[in-house]
């Protein structure tokens, strides 16, 4: 197998990208994404990575540059965060509609205002409807492995959609941890060179980006939707193949943790999953029947898998590190929609937590579980979306 080294996770992500042999990388600096692209620039400068590294004049340009390169038939990569992802948004929708399998890293960060460089999921979740696939990673090793899996998924001829690998800013991007790097030969076998179905070339002139009238546009959207749903089966196959290759499995669309007989089931994405798992172990030792579903893929949304995982629970507590202002948490809204047609369904507790980098500790998890228990005892949810750890003066004022 490969070598295990302690490194900053941003370096680990850069190592994963290098192993995938992208031909064009373009990026624009934004905290906390910068270390990833700096490492890649250094790898190109040192001749370790044979790739065109294009320093863009904005995130909008960076996304556009990889859009053009991907349409010309090469493997591409970019990364951003926060405002940068929002600036890329128009291009990302266009990229998905043009069916370009670009891989991006989203180093999750607050969206201004107020400006902050802390972590939450508001930035990537705002891209929910774009047609870009989204996966959220838990830890260092998954951050490395997920990028390699992402290329294989995006470039599948039945899918051909961009994918955003969401990595919590700071708590993941800037943390040093051991990462086991795969041998290049294994990665090459798992991820062969990209052979696009079609691309821009004078040898076979095709038209990309046509005007579609009302007689055809809906069919294009349907095909995107179908392709993303098709990705659900592919994800399961890809993670199994990856597991066979190196013995690592971080979950498919979701990962269940002690859900079997759980009365209370938590749902979460990103780095807080680790904290929740530890808290669950402690509570389990005390006899509290609590489990967790790590939502690894947010798009495609794993509705069937979630239903299966939580159907025996009495209450589901969904942690959202975001808020759709005027509605509630984005993840909990999707979870509720997935469950709504079940005749016998668990209560759903929406928990807005960890917004703006507010720390989620084991005691935060315990307080959420206590809220869930109260909901079970009373048979109802008091607040559809509860703000966890909110300053009481603000709440009452």
């Amino acid at each position, binding site marked *: 197998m490969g070598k295990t080294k302690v490194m900053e996770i941003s370096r680990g992500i850069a190592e994963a990208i290098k192993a995938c042999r992208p*031909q*064009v990388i*373009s990026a624009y600096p934004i905290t906390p994404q910068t270390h990833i692209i700096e490492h890649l620039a250094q790898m190109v400068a040192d001749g370790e990575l*044979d*790739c*065109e590294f*294009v*320093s*863009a*004049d*904005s995130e*909008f*340009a*960076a996304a*556009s*540059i*990889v*859009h*053009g*390169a*991907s*349409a*010309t*038939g*090469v493997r*591409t990569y970019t990364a951003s965060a926060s405002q940068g992802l929002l600036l890329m948004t*128009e*291009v990302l929708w*266009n990229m998905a509609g*043009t069916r370009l399998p670009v891989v991006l890293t989203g180093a999750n960060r607050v969206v201004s205002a107020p400006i902050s460089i802390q972590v939450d999921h508001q930035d990537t979740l705002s891209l929910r409807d774009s047609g870009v696939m989204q996966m959220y990673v838990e830890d260092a090793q998954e951050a490395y492995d997920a990028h390699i899996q992402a290329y294989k998924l995006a470039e599948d001829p039945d899918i051909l959609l961009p994918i955003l690998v969401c990595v919590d800013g700071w708590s993941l991007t800037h943390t040093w941890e051991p990462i086991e790097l795969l041998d290049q030969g294994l990665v090459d076998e798992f991820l062969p060179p990209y052979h696009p179905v079609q691309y*821009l*070339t*004078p040898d*076979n*002139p*095709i*038209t*990309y*980006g*046509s*005007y*579609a*009238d009302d007689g*055809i546009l809906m069919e294009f959207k349907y095909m995107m939707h179908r392709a993303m749903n098709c990705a659900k089966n592919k994800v399961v196959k890809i993670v199994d193949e990856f597991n066979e290759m190196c013995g690592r499995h971080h979950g498919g669309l979701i990962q269940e943790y002690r859900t079997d007989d759980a009365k209370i089931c938590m749902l979460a994405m990103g780095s807080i999953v680790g904290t929740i798992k530890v808290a669950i172990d402690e509570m389990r030792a005390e006899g509290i029947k609590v489990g967790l579903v790590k939502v690894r893929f947010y798009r495609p949304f794993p509705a069937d898998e979630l239903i299966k995982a939580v159907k025996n629970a009495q209450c589901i507590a969904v942690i959202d590190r975001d808020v759709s202002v005027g509605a509630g948490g984005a993840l909990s809204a999707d979870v509720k929609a997935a469950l709504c047609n079940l005749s016998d369904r668990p209560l759903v507790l929406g928990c807005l937590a960890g917004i703006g980098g507010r720390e989620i500790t084991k005691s935060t998890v315990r307080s959420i579980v206590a809220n869930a228990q109260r909901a079970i005892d009373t048979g109802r949810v008091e607040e559809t979306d509860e703000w966890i750890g909110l300053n009481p003066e603000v709440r009452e004022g």
Partner: protein
Amino acid sequence: MAIDEIAEEELFVSGHRACMGCGEAIATRLILKTTGKNVIVVTATGCLETFASRYLASPWKVPWIHPLFENAAAVASGVEAALKTKHQERVKVVVIAGDGATFDIGFGMLSGMVERRHNVLYICYDNEAYMNTGYQRSGATMYGTSTTTTPAGKFSLGKVQPKKDVPAMMAANGADYVATASVSYPWDLVKKVKKAVESKGPSYIQIHTPCPTGHGFPENKTIEIGRIAVQTGLVPLYEMEKGKLTSSEKIGRRKPVEDYLKSVGWFKHLFVTGDGAAVVKEIQRSADENVAKFNL
């Protein structure tokens, strides 16, 4: 230059939905006759994309991509970077975008493309306003023009600012080759496109393409209107290489700007009352300035 030097083969074919007399359709046809097949074309959102990309009815016989309104230059940069990794530098990347995409919304990314020195020929078809959305003013609109967002009225004589000098900006930005052309001077246009294709760095050509529906003239007058614009000195035709003026199209006996202003509808307000006289005078002054500046 003789007519047999222009390729017979059509790479921008009939069946598109341009208005009759559309200047940019004529320009695009000439551009592709000059570049030949060994190109990848990127087009910004605008008239050209709208009339020439209907699904399953593409008039493009070259590889062509339309991404968004503002990012043609950046997408072209990516296409060029990809070609480099594939060792296909012989394929020329050509952007064809309108003045709104070039002067206004996509200007930053055009500047970035030139600064990074991509081997891309960026061609702006300049019809001097947002024609696709209904004739709103752009940075390319001339002083005194009555557009739908700078309409002439009781207290207005049209646009109050002069046209943005993008060719000068591109030269200052470091473009190896900068030229202006007019659809009414096809030999000159072809010669300039040929030169730009051969250039290995970033190049910029701005082609004046009169628009019958927007500028307000009969559709059989496109070439004539474009020629009068040049003959008045309002549309100077020149080349700049490595930032220096290297050639200009001599006008000979110059026409007064009124000849142009009276032939297009969107200046007619200047001649309704006496108020327009000062504006006409100012436009004449800018034409005189062009003559001195570009040695026309």
